[in-house]
């Protein structure tokens, strides 16, 4: 069942975002950087590609129809540095995922955070940190 929440980021959160680059290949200006959206769904496909990866998530609407949402992140090596592997999101994996939504209302977002049904958390922005 779809659960969508749009929230303005707290100022502390917004400042934290500035500390790491946004999407590093194309501008992220098509996304609402001060809003987040959270949905629950099932992984349809994890497109593990350069320069950007896309996690496609099927969300069942109230009327029973299904919308496929796309969550954009960096490419494979940056995700790997964030501890995200292709095998972490096999088709059928249930998750709750958060991102900055598209300004034009398309069912897509810049991926910020994800929590799998088993409780494991994935933050793709960790990929730019040096460990």
């Amino acid at each position: 069942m779809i659960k969508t929440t749009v929230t303005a980021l707290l100022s502390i959160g917004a400042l934290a975002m500035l500390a790491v680059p946004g999407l590093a290949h194309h501008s992220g200006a098509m996304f609402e950087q001060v809003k987040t959206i959270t949905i629950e769904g099932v992984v349809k496909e994890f497109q593990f590609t350069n320069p950007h990866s896309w996690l496609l998530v099927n969300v069942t609407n109230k009327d029973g129809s299904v919308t496929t949402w796309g969550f954009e992140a960096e490419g494979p090596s940056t995700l790997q540095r964030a501890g995200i592997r292709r095998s972490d999101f096999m088709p059928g994996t249930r998750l709750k995922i958060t991102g900055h939504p598209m300004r034009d209302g398309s069912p897509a977002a810049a991926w910020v955070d994800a929590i799998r049904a088993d409780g494991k958390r994935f933050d793709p922005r960790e990929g730019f940190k040096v460990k």
Partner: protein
Amino acid sequence: MLRGTTTTVLSIVFLAAAALLPACSRANTPPAGTAGAQAPERTREQMIDLGRQHKTASELYQALREQAKGGQRLTSNNQPDWNGVYTRAPIPGFAFDPAQPPNGLPTAKLTPEFHAKMLKRIADAKQGIEWDPISTCSPPGHPRWLTEPFLREFIVTPDQTWLINEMVNDIRRIYTDGRNHVPEADRYPLYNGDSIGFWDGQKLVIHTNQLQAGIYQRSQPDYTDQVETVEIWQKVDDKALGVDVWVYDPPSLEEPWYAKQSYVKLNDPDKNLRIRYWNCAENQNNSVFQTDKGATEFRGFTFTRKGEKP
């Protein structure tokens, strides 16, 4: 008598060998030149002044070369160890100069025209109007090349050093075999330009010309096709490489722009970090275009589109 003589001769041989050992050891260690490893570190202000003292990048490069007495050729015994997978040391945003204050403007002293251009770019971005020329997999080009946040590898050989950026499979070749730039009449603008260099101890000094116009990064200034750079690359410690860079571009800069770049070695205990091929056409969902207003939009998704009935 015989025993005494033998002992004396052996002692002389031993002392001579002991005296020679450090010399042999030194032969395997490149001498430090003026810009070499033993020279005291200059302050940022001194580095800025060093750029100001020379009218062109070529003049600065030649001065460094003369100070290093032409530099030293690398051999298999004295090659610096730059192995590993690196990335640019994280900084807030994508500033060309890591010393740019948070929420401040770039540190470059821009000509009025280029200052106004930069301010407009920053103001537009705040309104959601932003287009990055690399969005369709064009190379970032140098000197922007220094700023990208992805993986890096550095391959050192006596005649060439390859500076590799994961983004769009990008390689800068630095020729250190003594060759000069191509004749002026045969030069034409290139993404990464033409780079020649020399080794001053364990420091690689590079001069790059023949570059294309571009931007240093998003919300950063433009540079023209007159841009040239001088860089000094060196290992700071086992985990980091440092690069002093001076950018000369008279149409856009009132004086050379100095910045200190850093690249840090990533922990890769399982050896799983790899530089993979980049191709924007590989995934249709990565296809973007520039709108009439100058903004960035996706061309279309393979998944549900806006307004589409599921």
